[in-house]
Structures are given as C-alpha cells and as structure tokens.
C-alpha cells in the first residue's frame, strides 16, 4: 500500500520535502514505519524524539496503518 506522510519543522528540513510517499506492506505498524524512516533518514536519530500522528491523534506504536490514514511525523513540539 502507498502511505502519504506529512512533514513539519525540522523533519521537513531533514527529508527535504513537506510530504513523503512510501510503499509499505499492508498493516504496517507505526513502530515499523518509524524504524523505516530512521534507517532512510539517519538525521532523524539525532532528534530528541519524534512521534507519528494518525488522523490528528498521536498513534501508539502498535497501531496498524491504513492507506487512507492521514499520517504525519511529529518532531519535538515547541509551541507556546
């Protein structure tokens, strides 16, 4: 399945784009997606943390992604 991942802040700078399209196996977990991104973009490993959001909620690592999910990589937030 094809996943579209929105990128913000420093994650956008690391990847060099505001959106990433990835080919992923069906029912890929959030943990697997994070591992794949860490391997593909090693600079992500230097971040304090990063989370994955699905449909505007923080997703647990065992969540299985679906093709139409709105997925975003959330680097450390710094609002306020």
């Amino acid at each position, binding site marked *: 399945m094809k996943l579209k991942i*929105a990128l*913000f*802040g*420093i994650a956008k*700078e690391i990847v060099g784009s505001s959106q990433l399209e990835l080919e992923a196996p069906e029912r890929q977990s959030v943990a697997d997606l994070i591992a794949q991104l860490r391997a593909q973009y090693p600079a992500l490993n*230097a*971040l*304090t943390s990063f989370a994955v*959001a699905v449909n*505007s*909620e*923080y997703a647990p690592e065992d969540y299985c992604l679906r093709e139409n999910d709105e997925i*975003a990589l*959330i*680097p*450390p*937030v*710094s*609002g*306020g």
Partner: protein
Amino acid sequence: MNIHLTDQPIDVAAVLASVQDEGAGAVNTFIGTVRNQSTGRRVVRLDYEAYDAMAVHQMRRVAEQAREKWPMLCQVAIIHRKGRLEIGDVAVVVAVSTPHRADSFAACQYIIDTIKQVVPIWKKEEYEDGSVWVAAHP
C-alpha cells in the same frame, strides 16, 4: 470554547471578552510573548509552523481535559499564532473564567503547560547568525 490558530495578530481584549461569564468571579489569562534572547543568543524573530488541523484538534482536546479536571470552568479561550513573529509579539493567549480564583490559576496553568507538550506547533528561532528549531535536539 474559543479555540483558534491564526496568522493574524491576536486581539487580547477580544479574547478576554470571549471568556466573560455571569457565573465567573475570576478571569485568568496567560499571554506568551516573543523574547529577544534565548540561551544567551540574541533572537531577531520567530517563525511558527503548525500542523493546522491537528493543532486545533489538540487545543480543543486540552480545553476539554481542563473542563474534566475543573468542572466549574465557565469559559475557555486558546488562541495561538503561526507564521513570522517579531520581538514582543503575542504568540499565545490562554484565558479561563471560573467562579473562584484558585481554580482559574490552576486551569490556566494546566492548559498552557499541556499545550506546550502536545500541540503540533514548531518554533524556529532566528538569530543574527543562523537559526534553530527549538527543542529539536537534546
């Protein structure tokens, strides 16, 4: 609830007006402003980037959590800026109204502290000689 993300200057008086309530004996406001220095470096401006839909959703969620913790809350307003801000600009306003003052202080602090932890907004500090995404690296 008055919950907004905006690229326009925040009208603090309008935010205060939005939490007026006949049942409230207290209105508590937190105003976050852009400071001219950070960890010893001179800041010239800030750029705020937001994941708009999720940011608004999470701000609403924080307000709902505050209402669960302080059921006496009368009104809540959370307004956050995005885009380019200059020194002294208002970046965020939280305002709550409650029957008595102690709850207004506690609820307002809970809301701003939780916003800083969960709302997907990112601040880039621009210095005279470079820039840094705040909190990105340990």
